[in-house]
């Protein structure tokens, strides 16, 4: 929406000499329009002139200026953006200017698909030299909203298409230091350790990442993000997930605190389904929890876990009941 200041200054197209040759094209809503919008006069007039240049396919400077005004009024109009790109190409406009234009409106409309798509188009044309500026820009948006989906997607695209991986893991660390519950930052961390050409991939990073994640879990066992991340570190390698003691150890540690242990039980259940052989201590700890929560002391460990979860996690009791009834036959 244009601000009131803009409204005061705005001269209607009909009074602008440079537009005197253009006949505005009204919207064809039909005799009985549905979901009709009571447009302000400014909006209606701007769109009438836009339709005129769009239909005439006029790729001119004044057409570019017109799209600027139309986008200012409704940045979600993808037709206007699409036409703007055609004009930009035809006029061979310096795209650095275009980037400044997007900077301005993106902050106010940071959840708009069109702006981010346009930004990607511009950055792609500018090439690798644009990487720093793009990373800086997304960082600015993420400082306002650390979970902005579009900003993260754009950032990943920049890294993969234009480069700039050098400080990305540090950036993830910083964001997680600010807010260890920020799942978007965990997701970005996963993206970096699996895809950065500088780090050697998941296998090379696994040990240090497991340590980092275990520490995060023990500090906040109620935080789901590191639990899912931990599983992710073994994606595609279930045998290693089952055999790596660090995984069952963190489950055991959390279970022993007797507090916030839903995610520990849930992970342990998956381990058992994958063929994990639990230690006596682990069995004892779970059975102790089972005695206070349920009356299924003679059942196998996986069944006991499901029964405990049905009780302590009642929002998911239907899910845990289904899991209990669908345990692989050879599970401990």
């Amino acid at each position: 929406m244009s601000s009131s200041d803009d409204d005061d200054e705005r001269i209607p197209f009909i009074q602008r000499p440079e537009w005197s040759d253009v006949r505005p094209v009204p919207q064809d809503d039909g005799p009985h329009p549905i979901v009709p919008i009571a447009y302000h006069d400014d909006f209606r007039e701007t769109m009438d002139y836009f339709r005129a240049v769009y239909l005439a396919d006029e790729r001119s400077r004044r057409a570019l200026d017109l799209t600027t005004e139309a986008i200012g009024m409704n940045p979600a109009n993808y037709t206007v953006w699409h036409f703007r790109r055609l004009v930009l190409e035809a006029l061979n406009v310096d795209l650095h200017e275009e980037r400044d234009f997007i900077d301005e409106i993106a902050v106010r409309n940071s959840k708009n698909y069109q702006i981010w798509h346009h930004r990607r188009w511009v950055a792609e044309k500018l090439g690798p030299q644009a990487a720093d500026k793009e990373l800086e820009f997304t960082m600015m948006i993420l400082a306002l909203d650390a979970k902005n989906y579009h900003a993260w997607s754009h950032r990943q695209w920049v890294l993969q298409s234009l480069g700039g991986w050098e400080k990305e893991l540090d950036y993830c660390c910083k964001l997680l230091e600010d807010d260890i519950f920020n799942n978007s930052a965990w997701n970005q961390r996963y993206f970096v350790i699996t895809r950065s050409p500088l780090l050697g991939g998941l296998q090379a990073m696994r040990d240090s990442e497991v340590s980092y994640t275990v520490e995060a879990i023990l500090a906040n066992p109620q935080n789901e993000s590191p639990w899912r991340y931990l599983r992710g570190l073994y994606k595609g390698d279930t045998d290693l997930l089952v055999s790596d003691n660090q995984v069952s150890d963190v489950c055991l540690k959390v279970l022993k605190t007797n507090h916030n242990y839903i995610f520990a039980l849930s992970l342990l259940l998956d381990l058992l389904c994958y063929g994990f052989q639990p230690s006596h201590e682990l069995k004892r700890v779970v059975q102790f929890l089972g005695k206070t929560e349920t009356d299924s002391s003679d059942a196998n460990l996986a069944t006991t876990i499901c029964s405990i979860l049905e009780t302590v996690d009642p929002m998911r009791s239907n899910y845990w009941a289904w899991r209990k009834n669908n345990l692989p036959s050879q599970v401990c």
Partner: protein
Amino acid sequence: MESSPSFSTSFSSPPSTNPIPNPNLDSQPRLTVTQLEQLKVEEKVAEIYRLLNGVSAHARSLMSELWCDKHVEFLTRGLKQLGPSYHVLDANRPWLCYWILHSIALLGEPLDTELENDVVDFLSRCEDEDGGYGGGPGQLPHLATTYAAVNTLVTLGSENALSSINRDNIYKFLLRMKDSSGAFRMHDAGEIDVRACYTAISVASILNILDYELVKDVGNYILRCQTYEGGISGEPGSEAHGGYTFCGLATMILINEADRLDLSSLLDWVAFRQGVECGFQGRTNKLVDGCYSFWQGGVLALMQRLLPIVAKQLTPSSVSGESSLGSTCNIKSSDLAGQGSGKLSDVSFSFIKRHTESGPLFHTIALQQYILLCSQVLEGGFKDKPGKQRDFYHTCYCLSGLSVSQYSWSKDAGACPLPTAILGPYSNLLEPIHPLHNVVLDKYYISHEFFSRS
């Protein structure tokens, strides 16, 4: 043990859970932004539920009533006139039609023929001469608004509405939007993502024009979007998200490739999205939002019908190494599709016709409680969460989620649920939907018959 202190919602037996890490026991010296925002929402929701639990049974029943008349009034008014602030949705008018008309259909409210014909006329003005529908008259055709327009016309269900769709042109448009990767782009030179794939495939399926050329490699793209968390993201590498998970899973089912996904991790992820507020969040550690009642609730409704495949994936022989999933699974999606002729356009029909043995996988009464008490606006319409404003988008997806949860105990799609499955008076019961397309089930059947003829 997780005790159940302040936040109990024992009425109609939604679960009571310990909502928050006790800040005093927390080893963190301070609460993070995520925790603070979460606490604020939990407090607001808890206040509503406390109120609910403090009143008589009669008052509780009143509080959980669906205010149908008010909703119809709010919706009908929007259909006929929208204020100037709606100019930000000027490129989404078929969406406004769909959100409003699907909501009215869910409420079982008939539409008069004149109004119905006006909608058909208006949408035909949004249709591009080379195929597809744009966001308004004269706008570039776009996959999302094409989906909205087609679903609207299916929801109207009349001969006039269904025959107004130019299927040959839509097919050409869909093919033009297909990228060499197999995925789809939203419009000419537009963005590629999972939403685009879903809207394209859903439209093609419902219009009976889905073929191998449209399907080719789209499954590979969706697979690349399943994240380490289990859910599906908008693009490869992004974060698992409720909206995209619905779109990705529905696409895979419609193209008969659902068994290629890691369904057990998907199920685990989505099951954990229902929180102490009783509603769903869109992503891990994000806030509850009424619209995910459909996106996540819909995923769980779809998963309910895929459970034989999940059970198969959970057995050790098929879990080591993800690539083996497709090939080692004896139960394929095609088995779920029944004894169809193998035509892709039959998948959706067979999927919904199939009898299911399993009950729901989420807490359906709790979800209804969140929708009716935290999202419902007494003057009509629904909102994201307490403190937010109502809008047509949230009205559509809260009602769709409400319908999904009301029918989730039915073993056959659309079978009348028992009163125990419904929170509040039985008159709260909405029309059932087809969860792959999110259109009212009866309307789906009518359109299926119509488009099967040709």
